[in-house]
């Protein structure tokens, strides 16, 4: 047990928001505002790195746990903590927001106060999602995320239909929140029946310790699946993602598509809370995963826009991760978590780069680009590096993740594994095809004068992500060591659970 465990570091991450928001609203000019935002995120990156370093990987179970009464009469607790599955997401979150703030540094000129406040709010909320150990607290953060997203997309989006996209996204997410709340409330009531004399409880560790009866687990499984499917996104509820990718502000999308919150919620809540149902219906997740995997890949193949390509590719990636979770073996699970972290780095890096292109050319369509490589060699090289990482080329973090995932999937369902192998070929196809159209070939005359290579700040943002990608590619055990104990106990919980 590490001695620092008692320090309320996770709460520190959460309470930094009101403080920094206060400073931001008292700041005099936009320069000060973004400096405050930057300092906040850097501090948080440090704090989350301390959490990661202080994390004892040998012990499965939650660490850095803090419990305080929140609404005692119901009883809902403020309960946060991390385990091996979630601890890496905290520094990752800080890193992505650092990238977002630096990428929008002097490019957001309208209402910078509100922009940075919303950005910091979104960041705090995602911290909450990754660390909440109380179902209602999780739900609170889950729904709270809609507010910053709605305003960020509808006010700072780039597409002509940004308002529409924002409204539809918000409606869809609110609607899908209902089954989640229902599931959590029913679970608490059921738990009260199961364990006499304890009353209602929303605490995740308690709920995990006493699994519900099988029919109830089935109900829970489907309620949670219904509520998480749009967020993942699962085919056919994925339509909001390409729309958002086209309409929303690119640097914010880097976070929304980068952090795969839906997949995390499946890993954290859906499967562990309904282990019996999972054992019975894992074929359903496998089917949905395969559908997403192939559908996303095929649609990505026919895209002509860098942003929608990334959106569909991300649907395909989520399908692969879902398959790894449904495989229910150690390599599939570790590969899936590794892949989540890997895709966060890669997808957001690619989104940032696309944003830089859009800032220069006002377009992300292949017809308006073309021949970027000559003018922007550094941007092209980094784009290619991250793209190759998404294809799982060795030397990047994509390789160990994809390898473990594929082995796990082939082991569990060989037929589906073959489909995943085929998607490997499609993945090379869709990325390289559009990459060639946009970056290679003779330079277009209309873009000739306005193109300049990455500035130092931009280079810093992407280079940081790229170096983490390469670091994890060469030393994958840095991450896998943190995971393995928790993953093993997670899997044991699923496989040996009896009501």
């Amino acid at each position: 047990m590490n001695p620092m465990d008692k320090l309320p570091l996770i709460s520190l991450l959460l309470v930094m928001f009101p403080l920094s928001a206060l400073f931001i609203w008292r700041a005099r000019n936009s320069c000060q505002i973004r400096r405050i935002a930057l300092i906040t995120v850097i501090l948080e990156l440090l704090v989350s790195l301390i959490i990661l370093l202080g994390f004892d990987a040998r012990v499965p179970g939650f660490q850095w746990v803090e419990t305080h009464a929140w609404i005692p009469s119901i009883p809902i607790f403020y309960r946060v903590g991390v385990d091996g599955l979630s601890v890496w997401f905290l520094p990752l979150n800080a890193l992505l927001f650092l990238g977002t703030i630096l990428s929008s540094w002097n490019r957001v000129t309208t209402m910078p106060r509100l922009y940075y406040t919303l950005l910091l709010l979104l960041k705090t909320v995602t911290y909450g999602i990754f660390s909440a150990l109380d179902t209602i607290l999780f739900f609170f953060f889950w729904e709270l995320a809609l507010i910053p997203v709605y305003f960020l997309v509808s006010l700072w989006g780039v597409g002509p239909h940004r308002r529409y996209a924002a409204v539809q996204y918000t409606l869809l997410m609110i609607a899908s929140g209902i089954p989640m709340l229902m599931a959590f409330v029913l679970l608490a009531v059921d738990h009260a029946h199961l364990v006499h004399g304890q009353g209602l409880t929303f605490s995740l560790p308690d709920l995990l310790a006493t699994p519900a009866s099988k029919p109830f687990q089935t109900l829970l499984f489907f309620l949670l699946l219904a509520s998480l499917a749009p967020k993942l996104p699962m085919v056919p509820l994925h339509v909001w993602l390409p729309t958002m990718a086209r309409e929303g502000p690119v640097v914010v999308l880097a976070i929304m598509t980068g952090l795969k919150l839906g997949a995390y919620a499946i890993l954290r809540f859906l499967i562990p809370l309904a282990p019996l149902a999972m054992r019975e219906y894992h074929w359903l997740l496998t089917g949905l995963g395969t559908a997403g995997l192939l559908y996303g890949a095929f649609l990505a193949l026919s895209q002509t826009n860098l942003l929608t390509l990334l959106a569909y590719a991300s649907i395909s990636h989520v399908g692969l991760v879902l398959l790894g979770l449904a495989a229910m073996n150690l390599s599939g699970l570790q590969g899936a978590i590794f892949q989540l972290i890997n895709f966060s780095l890669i997808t957001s890096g690619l989104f940032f780069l696309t944003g830089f292109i859009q800032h220069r050319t006002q377009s992300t369509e292949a017809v308006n680009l073309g021949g970027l490589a000559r003018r922007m060699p550094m941007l092209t090289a980094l784009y290619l590096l991250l793209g190759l990482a998404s294809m799982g080329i060795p030397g990047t973090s994509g390789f160990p993740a994809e390898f473990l995932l594929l082995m796990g999937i082939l082991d569990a369902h060989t037929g589906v594994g073959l489909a995943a192998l085929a998607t490997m070929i499609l993945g090379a196809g869709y990325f390289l095809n559009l990459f060639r159209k946009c970056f290679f070939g003779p330079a277009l005359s209309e873009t000739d004068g306005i193109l300049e290579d990455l500035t130092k700040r931009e280079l810093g943002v992407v280079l940081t992500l790229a170096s983490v990608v390469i670091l994890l590619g060469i030393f994958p055990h840095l991450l896998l060591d943190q995971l393995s104990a928790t993953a093993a106990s997670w899997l044991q919980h699923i496989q040996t659970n009896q009501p």
Partner: protein
Amino acid sequence: MVDHSAWLAIFLPWGAALTLAGERLFHPVWHEAKEKTVGKISFAATLGALLVLLLLDVKAVLFGPSGALHSGEWFGAGTYTVPLGLMLDGLGLSLATLMAWISLLTIRFSIPYMHRESGFLRFFMILNLFIGAMQLIVLAGNALLVFVGWELAGVSSFLLIGYAFERNTATKNANRALITNRFGDAGFLFGIFAAFTWCGGVDWRQIARAAPQVETMGATLVGLGFLCAALAKSGQIPFSSWIARAMDGPTPSSAIFYGSLMVHAGVILTLRLEPMLQQTPSLLTAIAAIGFVTALYGWITAQGQSDVKSSLIFATISQIGLMFLWCGLGWFTLAAWHLGLHASFRAWQFLHAPSLMDDLDRPAPPAPRWLTRWQRLHTALLQRFWLEHLGDAMIVAPTMKLAADMRLLEHRAITPLAGLPAHANAISTLAQWQEQQTGAIPASGYAVDRSTGVAGKMIQGLASILYSFEENMILKGGGAGLMEVLQLVGKRLILIDHLLSQPRYLILMIALTFVIIL
């Protein structure tokens, strides 16, 4: 301890590649004086690798080859763990030395050849990456490390084919090469999975040890996976078309990649798999058949090519076909010898290709006389027997068609059902505009407050029902409408009650209840 220095043969070139990348990143301004430094770094790295290998060779000759070397574990989860190990046996060491030697010569050749090229640094960076990867393929002690080298060699080949990235044909060919190779990679990964499942690991020694006990099905699957990779990388039928396109790169890279080193990777993999392949006569027959057909194909196609590099590459393919034939016939040692000799000879020939014209002092030789008499055959040779078109028609076209169908499905069915704005409505290309005019994509035009999609329409329906209720029942006459309806319902209920009190309906009700319960 000396054995561990073998890692240097891999990491010295990679270190050089990294150094060059760092140089490009931190000192982006290029001037010609840098060419010397770049050349020196690359040369020194490969020379170092060669010296280390020679040292190990001397040791192997004096004390016998040290065999496998285990230096820890790379990563793993569950039953799938990847050891870090090298295979310093006769085959590995001799081939590695030969390859380091050829690489060194190629670097020496490239320094003046690439002089004043705009991508001088890029070329050497990729070349170094490739040399390290190739060493890894030859020296690696397990299939997964071979795969690492395999992929990196593939990527560097992609980068060099597309070296002149402003020419569309070059980049198209590069994409084609990498994507074709991905077929092989998928096979490779499947082979690795099969090796884990049936042999319990991917270490070459482990596979060899397990081979006699593995059932035929397992051995066939392992062999099939790796074989698919080997055929793709070595440009054998049916994967041969990419390799002729790969000639787009600068000549030294063609020499090292397709003349002498990378094309042989498939044969090397087959040699490593020898113990497993011995268990599956059917696979050996298939290898022999493919090798034979490719050898014939390469020979006859080479007769009709109109440029030097193409005829050389087809000659290469046919030689490699022969190597596969030897493997298939069980003569693995002959294949290894053939490989070494062919690699050395072909490297010289490819590097010589640019000056061939000067030496001969006459234009490229015309097609042989007998060939001109067979017009159709000549055409077939020039078209390389339409292998590529066949691949296009059988794989690429259906895939793209499927992708287009999926896109239509997305726009026509799923997007309207979900009621979200069709993102493709934002027209950005003329082609899309035309599609919209012909009705392939629905036209744009939507408002925030308009209900769309299944959910939206359902809510709209519910809202209109509630509205008519409100309108007709409650608002009309201060609730008089509701009263009227309620009175009507009340009268009906009284009637039903009256009917139910009569025995025949009561019995009917009870019978109905029973039917439902049972």
